């Protein structure tokens, strides 16, 4: 080991954070929007996988990865719409439906995706932000995907809209007190349906990132539970879109610890470090369960707290 080792590890972690955080970010934003309207969608893992498959297939056939991204979003919106529709029916538990939708989403993705495991589809390009540094490692780490920027912009837009637009207030109102919203003539079911659909769209786009940028291929083990982690992220971020982005970067960074250490020759505890995001999730859940602030920020209508 030499002096630059810690630096290399840090750069690798930074690169990892920038590279792998985007799907977390999109799913977390989608879930944030859904939960703000008072509904839980645990099915976003399935949406993510279906989005990944759809994006890859459309990109392969059309030759345009961005068309793939759009298709992934639409596939996600369709799954979200189904979830939203089923949850509107009386006496339906959104947590149970969400789990069913998760299995459904991954199931149809595997079913239709069999044919796309072998072929290579055109992938999304990247933007180099680090060439000026003159440091090859830093330059690689700072290669980012336009979707990440889109994600950050969506988060800022959501954060602004929740406070400054009629729609934003109506979504928060439906999520916090359905009777009040109904007393104002707001159709809570419709708001939740639309929020769930839009949330599905975002999660689908997150899936496109997985298959079209990083890791950049379609296979059945692509997501490995990232969609579920992202749902936990929303609780950690206390239903704030900006904090969702920060949490996604934190998750990306912890996920990169293992590979980063391996790249400098530290192989001890490789699997342990790879589990870091999951261990982090666990601790976050424990910490936020006892957090008084989380209790204040949670939308009052969420069925997980009723």
């Amino acid at each position, binding site marked *: 080991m030499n002096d630059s080792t810690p630096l290399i590890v840090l750069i690798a972690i930074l690169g990892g954070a920038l590279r792998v955080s985007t799907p977390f970010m999109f799913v977390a934003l989608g879930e944030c929007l859904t939960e703000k309207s008072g509904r839980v969608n645990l099915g976003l893992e399935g949406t993510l996988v279906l989005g990944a498959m759809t994006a890859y297939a459309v990109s392969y056939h059309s030759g345009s990865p961005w068309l793939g991204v759009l298709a992934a979003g639409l596939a996600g919106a369709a799954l979200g719409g189904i979830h939203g529709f089923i949850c509107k029916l009386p006496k339906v538990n959104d947590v149970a439906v969400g789990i069913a939708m998760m299995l459904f989403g991954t199931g149809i993705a595997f079913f239709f995706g069999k044919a796309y495991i072998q072929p290579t589809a055109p992938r999304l390009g990247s933007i180099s932000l680090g060439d000026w540094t003159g440091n090859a490692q830093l330059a690689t780490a700072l290669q980012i995907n336009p979707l990440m920027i889109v994600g950050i912009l969506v988060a800022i837009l959501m954060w602004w809209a929740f406070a400054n*637009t009629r729609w934003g207030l109506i979504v*928060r109102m439906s999520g916090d*007190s359905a009777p*009040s919203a109904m007393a*104002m*003539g707001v159709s809570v079911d419709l708001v939740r349906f639309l929020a769930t659909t839009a949330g599905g769209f975002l999660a689908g786009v997150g899936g496109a990132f997985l298959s079209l940028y990083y890791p950049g291929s379609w296979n059945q083990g692509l997501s490995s539970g990232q969609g579920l982690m992202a749902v936990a992220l929303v609780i950690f971020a206390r239903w704030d879109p900006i904090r969702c982005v920060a949490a996604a970067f934190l998750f990306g960074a912890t996920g990169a610890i293992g590979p980063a250490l391996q790249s400098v020759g530290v192989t001890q505890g490789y699997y342990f470090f790879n589990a870091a995001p999951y261990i982090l999730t666990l601790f976050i859940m424990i910490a936020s369960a006892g957090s008084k602030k989380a209790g204040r920020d949670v939308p009052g209508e969420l069925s997980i707290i009723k």
Partner: protein
Amino acid sequence: MSNALSAAPSLVSTPRAMSLETIGMTKTFGSFTALDNVSLKVDAGSFHALLGENGAGKSTLVKSIMGYYHADKGSLLLDGHEAQVRNPRDARDLGLGMVYQHFTLVPCLTGAENLVISRADAPAVIDWKKEKKALDAFLDRMPFRAPLDKPVSSLAAGEKQKLEILKLLYLDQRLLILDEPTSVLTPQEADEILGLLKGMTDRGDISVVIITHKFREVTAFADALSVLRRGKRVGGGLVKDMTTDEMARLMIGDTPIRQRALRQENTTGPVTLELAGLMADGDEGASVLNAVNLKIHSGEIVGIAGVSGNGQSQLVEVLSGQRPLRDGRIFVRDKPFEPTRDAYFRLKIFGLPEEPLKNATVARMTVAENLAFRNFDRPPNAKFGWWLSPGPMRTKARELIARYRVKTQSPESAIGDLSGGNVQRAVLARELSGEVDVLIVANPCFGLDFASVAEIRSQIMEQRNKGAAVLLVSEDLDEILELADRVAVMSEGTIAFVSPIGETDRATIGKHMAGHE
């Protein structure tokens, strides 16, 4: 009207208050007639009280007016013109506003956000600078203010209630319906708000319909009243022409009321229940009980008055073992008490918590099972402490159901299917049928009709006369003034004031409830 000028419409001082009239309004739910041909007139600029027992149809009437229900028959006139109200939004557009028993403000939004979003023409993108300016200008015209920049969840009940009313005025509603608006307020706050509304009706700005149980509020503020009983309008008229006895008679009809148990003037015994420095945290972690100290003697009722949300519910939860203590001790007959099932049994501590369906029963279990909660694992209900015998349980349940007149189809019905009064009676039967040393009671008569109220109060008094130490937490000051031997006022999680009931009055108690010395 002799003046020729007054016949011309005046643009300056058009009376804005709206009149309301229902004609033959009828609403049935299945075979049950909730509203039976109700005709009622509220003049423009009047303060109209709507009286009636629970289940008399008051809520059904106002909900039919507000468009939540569609009346089967009858029509609604606003300002003399027939109006179609298909849903609450129509009602809002017509100038009808309602303040509910529960708050309808969205807790996570600020006051300003709540006001702006409630407007039908809320802009798609809100220019907060402009809206804040408009809101300030609006508040300057109003007789009272409420904070607009804080999330509603952080406001006190009185502030929330003011904000609810401000919201309706902001929406330019010209007839306000208030459904028991003062139950969450101190007497002073209630008087203040009703007084302000009264002023607005006198000026002809609005008309008000108020549903209330408090005759004091009717006689102090209302001009006219209507009484509903079993879905029918059985009487009414100008308030100044009626006595409260007449109002009560109209409300209850010929239902016989059980004689109130008289307070035996027995000398109170030794201290039975002692609360020493009780401290506890609320659901959100903030301290809600800050050193509660109180001694209750046997044969004494101590009434705890206070505005809801000052720690009373949490105190009851601590005493019934639902909330852990952070600090402090509870002593029963000078021995430290821990809330275990065994200790409740040994020390004969019983309780009637508020919302009994939630706090004292399991809604889906049968009446018989719920009645056996205290003793299902003791003989004769159980052998060896775990082998249950349904036979004795059912026999005992039948006896209690008969003795306490619980109306249920059978002991095997789910207790959740019973009406509120009967759930309360069932819990009463379970808690009071044996020997009671300590009794913890919270809002025992909330939402019950006259007959049940009288019966439950007399049961509590009987226990006191038999020597129980009774802690009565109530949001109804009249209930405390009627039952208690001593009153203790709770404010911000501590006992702010204690006095024998004969040595204090409503105004003094109210001042302490509001946190003033």
